[in-house]
Each structure stands twice: as structure tokens, then as C-alpha cells.
């Protein structure tokens, strides 16, 4: 029975994850100052880095990596699905308001 996350993992990996998160943050700050991309591409690059950081946090710090597969996949698929639906509704709808005009 899976109780408190009592998986046999060393503490060392959490320090590595913490270090990786700090390095990724430093890369983001560097990119923010360099501004080598246009705003849209910059947004995409920063979002990709943020997603990588969030995967590390969810998988290791929140221990989802060590949970049962059904819980892992159900959570990931449902939340991701909601975000995808948001994306396909929010952006076109906001565009539609701009193009039609708001009276």
C-alpha cells in the first residue's frame, strides 16, 4: 500500500533538482536582459523553460513521479486538457472581440 511517499530515494537528487531550478532561473534572467527574441518568441521560450521547471517541481518536490500511474496520468491529462481548452477558447475569443469591436 502506498502510504506517505516512502520511496527509497536519496536526498541528493533533491539538491540537484534545486540546483537545476536555480540555473534555469539564471538562464531566464539572462534571456530577459539580452532580449534576443521578439516578444512572441521570447514568451514561448520563457514558457518552455517555465514548463521544464514546473515538471521538475511536480515530479520531484511534489513526488508525483513516485505516485501510482493512475493518479499521475489522471492529474496530468486532466489539467493539461483544461489548459488546452482554455488556449483554444480564450485567444480566438479575445481576437474576435478586437476584430468585431466592443460597443
Amino acid at each position: 500500500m502506498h502510504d506517505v511517499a516512502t520511496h527509497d530515494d536519496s536526498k541528493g537528487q533533491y539538491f540537484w533538482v534545486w540546483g537545476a531550478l536555480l540555473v534555469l532561473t539564471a538562464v531566464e534572467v539572462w534571456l530577459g536582459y539580452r532580449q534576443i527574441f521578439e516578444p512572441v518568441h521570447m514568451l514561448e521560450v520563457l514558457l518552455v523553460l517555465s514548463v521544464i521547471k514546473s515538471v521538475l517541481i511536480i515530479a520531484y518536490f511534489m513526488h508525483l513521479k513516485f505516485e501510482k500511474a493512475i493518479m499521475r496520468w489522471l492529474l496530468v491529462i486532466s489539467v493539461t486538457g483544461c489548459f488546452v481548452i482554455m488556449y483554444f477558447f480564450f485567444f480566438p475569443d479575445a481576437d474576435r472581440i478586437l476584430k468585431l469591436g466592443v460597443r
Partner: protein
Amino acid sequence: MSEITLQDDAVIAHGHAGEFEAPLFGAYSKKVGMWLFLASDSLTFGALLFAFSYNRIYTSWPTPFGKDSIINATVMTACLLSSSLTMVMAVFAAQRHDRAWTRNWLLATMAFGTGFIVLHGMEWTKLIHEGLSLPGFPKPAGQLESEYAHISSGVPQFAATFFGLTAMHMLHVTIGVIYLGVVALRKLFLPILGALWLVGFLLIPADNVFHYGIHALLIGLIISSVILFLKPKDYDAHDVEVSGLYWHFVDLVWMFIFPLVYLMSTKI
């Protein structure tokens, strides 16, 4: 009622009178409940971040954040990341039934969280003093022609999304610190929280937004008191792990707010 955990035979052994149904996700109900809450809360932040991203791309967005703001926000990020590490250590200590180190690591996590809130409060105070305000809110005297005052009137979405996102997140961090305080110190935390509220209310000037914002601690004090007096239990490893899930989520959300709100508005 005594705490029933999955370690109890009544839960594990099936086919006996009085048995509990086996958990669907192989985890205790508190953890599943917290995950479901976090999934729903992530959609709240998701909607706000989508709104921010749309505005950032399709409007003439100002880039006013100078070196000071970015350094401040980077230090805040480091505080939250470090707090997640200390939270993991607290969970490990709780699993070892090491009560002293569980409390110590939780207090360290709270210290990082409090540092984040204080730094963020200083940042807010500085920006408001320099003229950044929401539509309809008074602007500080002498700042009517400042850069931030022009931004507030010209692109009101900037202040709206900045204050909206960061206030929502700051509220979550504050709730997290109170949550961890209750788990770490139980009833002992109540007078500390009350003292913090009173000192904050008396020391923060009346023209500062946090003179009123500090009342969040009073609301937290009332709710924590009700919970602790209705169910004065000794929090176990499960509770520490569940509180850790909430704390890591707060860290996770900031990983999106920091690059989008700050780094996408950097003054070069």
C-alpha cells in the same frame, strides 16, 4: 475520533466487517483532496496568465522594470526555490518521526516564505510610490508625471495584470506560511500570528496598502483558531506531506509569474 491512516489494518485488510474501501489512487484521501484542490487552483492562475499573455502580445506593452526590480524578483525566486527544498527536508524528517527536525525545517520554509512576502511588499510599496496604480485609485502626490503614472493611465492592463497576478500569488504564499505555522507549532502559533498582525498593523504607515493587507493575518488567525480548537490534533507525516504539496504549488505558480510578469517587462 482517532486518526485513521492507511497503515491501519482496518484499511489494508479487505473482506472484514467495518473495512474501508481501498483508495482509488493508492494514496490517502487528504493527499488526493489536496491534489484535486491544486488542480482546480491551477486553472485560476492559468486563466490569469492567459489573460496576461494575450495582453502582453497584442498591446503596446511597457517595459518599466529596471535592474532593481529584476534583482529583487530574482532573490524572491531563489527564496521560494530554497523554501521548496527545506519543505522536502521537513517531509523526510516527518517520515523519520523526527519531530524536532520536522519543526525546524518547517520553520525554515516559513522563514523563506516570509522573506518572499516582505521583499514583494517592499517592491509593491516602491512601485505604488513611483506612481503605478489601478484605474480609480489615488496616485501619490508628486508622481503624476512619473513613468509609472503614465503607464497606469496609458496601459491600464499593465497595473491590472501586475497587481492581480502578484496579489493572488502573495495571498497564496501568506496562506501557505500560516498553514505551515499551524502544522509546525499548532496552538503555539496562534499568539505569534496575532502578535505579527498587531505589530504589522501598528507599524505599517496608514498610507501603505499593507496597512490594510495585514488584516489577511487576522482572518488567518480566526480561521486557524477555529480549526485548531475544533480539531486539536497532533499533525503527523501525512499532514506535513499534504502541506508540502500546497507549498510546492505556490512555488510552481511563481515559476510562471516571474518570467511572464517581470522578465517580459524588463527595461534594457
